[in-house]
């Protein structure tokens, strides 16, 4: 009985190695693994689309492997397994920055190239990719709003709260962009910035008040993903469709109805599929021994003009924002 058991264990251990060896031989070149926060979130399902596309285009051994649920510990374990497997590069979207540092440090000591996305605070990485700079994204939202407003009229900005870092940077950048590019537009002086507390209902009621109090108000620049949809509900109910406009961050499927009915012309976002591709492209560059300096071109839409964040040697920022409108709202799968 014991012998059989031992035999079974040996077989179980050897078989995967044989198969793994077979797999390694089948594909040539680098083995690069993308580790998202989890495997089931539609956002990362979309990222996998990009990764698989990249694998097909280049023939590299590139694949995405995620844990079943969002969990910092599980993610760290998965990365340790991958280090033991001896992959060439890891592209990670970290769940928790702090708890990942030691594991990423292990990976780099093992000679693995480490690229992260949305992990600008990490130290133990070769490079971190951000889809965009806060200033660039804010200006992009403003461009969209301005277009909807026909480049004229009074507008104001909405953020989750006045203490939210990135939202306020986006709003500041949007206002700066308007001052520079759209002279016929004006920021509402009495209410330059209102809060929505990341709550669609607060955004909706706040927008109703704004439009009542300031009849000249023609546009609201949203930042949180609840802002523009909430404002849109108010615009629809108040009978202001075609007279008042909003734009801002928004998830495609959540807002399909609003976009199709024309209450909102366009929302802004970044595409996880492209972010996934960009991470791999950068990993390949590093593995090839290319020097990463100045302006970096990763050959992926929106990531062709990447620059280092000011004061940072690891964080690269792209222009990976996209517009979502009635035409492409169903293309993303989330």
């Amino acid at each position, binding site marked *: 009985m014991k012998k059989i058991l031992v035999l079974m264990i040996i077989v179980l251990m050897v078989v995967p190695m044989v198969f793994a060896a077979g797999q390694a031989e089948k594909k040539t070149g680098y083995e690069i693994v993308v580790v998202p926060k989890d495997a089931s979130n539609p956002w990362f399902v979309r990222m996998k689309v990009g990764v698989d596309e990249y694998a097909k285009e280049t023939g590299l051994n590139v694949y995405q492997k995620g844990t079943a649920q969002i969990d910092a510990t599980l993610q760290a374990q998965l990365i340790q397994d991958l280090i033991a497997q001896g992959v060439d590069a890891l592209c990670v979207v970290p769940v928790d920055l702090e708890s990942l540092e030691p594991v990423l440090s292990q990976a780099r000591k093992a000679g693995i190239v480490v690229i992260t996305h949305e992990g600008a605070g990490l130290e133990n990485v070769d490079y971190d990719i951000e889809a965009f700079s806060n200033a660039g994204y804010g200006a992009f939202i403003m461009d969209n709003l301005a277009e909807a407003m026909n480049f004229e009229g009074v507008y104001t900005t909405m953020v989750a709260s006045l203490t939210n870092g990135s939202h306020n940077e986006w709003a500041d950048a949007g206002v700066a962009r308007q001052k520079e590019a759209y002279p016929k537009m004006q920021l509402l002086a009495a209410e330059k910035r209102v809060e929505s507390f990341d709550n669609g209902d607060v955004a909706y009621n706040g927008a109703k*008040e704004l439009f009542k109090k300031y009849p000249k108000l023609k546009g609201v620049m949203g930042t949180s993903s609840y802002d523009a949809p909430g404002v849109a509900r108010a615009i629809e*109910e108040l009978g202001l469709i075609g007279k008042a406009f909003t734009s801002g961050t928004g998830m495609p*499927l959540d807002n399909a109805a609003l976009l199709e009915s024309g209450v909102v012309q366009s929302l802004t976002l970044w595409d996880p599929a492209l972010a996934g591709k960009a991470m791999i492209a950068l990993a390949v560059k590093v593995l090839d021994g290319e020097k990463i300096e100045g302006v970096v071109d990763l050959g992926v839409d929106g990531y062709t003009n990447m620059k280092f964040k000011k004061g940072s040697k690891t964080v690269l920022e792209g222009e990976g924002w996209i517009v979502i409108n009635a035409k492409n709202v169903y293309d993303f799968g989330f």
Partner: protein
Amino acid sequence: MKSTISNTLQKLSRRNEPYVFLVLMLLCVLIEIRSGQFFSSNNLVDIASAFAVPGLFAIGAFMVIISGGIDVSFPALASLSVYATTKFLLDVNYQGGVWLAILIALALGAILGAFNGLFIGYFRLPALIVTLGSSSVFKGIMQGALNSKQLTVIPIGMKNFGTSSLFIAKNPVSGLTSRMPVAILAFLIVLFLVYFLMRYTMFGRGLYGIGGSEISAHRAGFGVRNTKFIMYVMVGMIASLAGVMRVCMMQQAHPTNMLGMEMNIIAGVVLGGTAITGGRGTLLGCMLGTLLIVIVENSLILIGVPTSWKSVFTGLLIIIGTGVSAYQVSRMNRVRSVETVAKEVV
């Protein structure tokens, strides 16, 4: 005749409702002066539509506080039952009217309310502790078992119910329109039922009795345990109904955005003169207090209070309002003790 008028005035001055009403009126006039929009038809409709959900919650919170308890779990309870309902109806691809959603949510609300009632009524555990705990449990079930995330598509029946209106108010000057949601009817029906219940039934009087003194109520023959249990079941149902109305009106089920409402709701109830120790208060006062909070929350932009000062303003109003009602209570107690002393001397 003169004496009756002054008597009534004196009686009124001891109650809280006239003060709240006065503050409310002053606030409305202030908003009107600052914006010129408050008394416009569409703004009044907006206020009413923003009031429906907090109003329902406040009715539930009022009943609990009258009975001498406190409930901080109702937003979580409402979120859980409406979220589960919406998810279930989406899964079975339900195409019918809103009534089924309301029925399922009411049933779930009754079960969840019974959970509170069991621990508070039968096991006599402190209401605050129990509801803090059950609030965590409800949130946990939602996030764990139901794996909650925002549902942006809701069943067609709920969607249609949320956008249907009793009438549409149009502001002749600005041309802005606002719809009076049908959901306001749910609020009015519950308001009427609970008013009747609290005023004209033994059950309602029992709640006041229990809130005043549990032992006296028990001696007087009220079934304290059963009364409390049934009340928590009812409150669970009212909260769930509020949840359904909220989801229909918002056109999406968000698992967490009702959480945190409990503080302002309870503040509104106390503001309206309901004694936090239980046993005293009127539904009218409770509604006035809640209305005050809702108007403040939804009119700061109209008044022109800068965003950064918003929470300061709301907080100050709560402190002043509850301070006034606390003062009223202590004054009344003083009057009472003087009266009893005088009687004993005679």
